[in-house]
């Protein structure tokens, strides 16, 4: 299935794109997606344990299965204010 991934801050720099579309197997978890992205973009390795994930605008846990057609966002811990 196809998903859209948005990247922000450092992660956008590591990936070199604001957004990508990716084909993933049904049943892929957040952790599985992160592991596959880290393999494709090794610059993510040092921060891989501190990547936050949102599915359709809500923070997601590593074990969560990614639903069909969802918008995924990956980003570092926030630093607004």
């Amino acid at each position, binding site marked *: 299935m196809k998903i859209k991934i948005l990247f922000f801050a450092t992660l956008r720099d590591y990936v070199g794109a604001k957004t990508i579309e990716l084909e993933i197997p049904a049943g892929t978890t957040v952790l599985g997606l992160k592991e596959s992205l880290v393999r494709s973009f090794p610059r993510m390795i040092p921060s891989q344990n501190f990547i936050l994930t949102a599915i359709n605008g809500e923070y997601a846990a590593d074990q969560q299965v990614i639903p069909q057609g969802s918008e995924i966002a990956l980003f570092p*811990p926030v630093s607004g204010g």
Partner: protein
Amino acid sequence: MDNPTIISITETELDLDALMRSVTLSSTGAAVVFTGMVRGITDRAEPHKTLYLEYEAYQPMAEAKMRQVAAEIRTRWPSVEGIAIVQRIGRLYPRTPTVLIACTAAHRDTGVFEAARYGIDRLKEIVPVWKKEVGPEGQTWVEGEYIPQKGE
């Protein structure tokens, strides 16, 4: 009159007076306003100079999370009347206000100080906004430390 909640992410200058008016009711007797600004000279921890900060937001989620912060304030401090949470984004130079949290209440002893404090602390935990710091030595993304849990 309904209790106003103002949530906004903007690239334009924060109008503190207008925001104050929008959260002041006839019954309001106290307002606590926090604004953060770009600090050009940092003495604490690792002393350094900052030329400007570049802010970006995951806008729809950031607005939803700011609404959530306002809702959490209302649950904890039911006497709070108006709430404004405004984050400015884009390139911002030293001495420029970047964020505003305003809470109003009938009286100052209602928890309104704590409410505004909670608002800025919570924004810095869960609202997806980031800043890149540009100084004479180069640029680095500022990263927070808080890891939100599922559904937080």
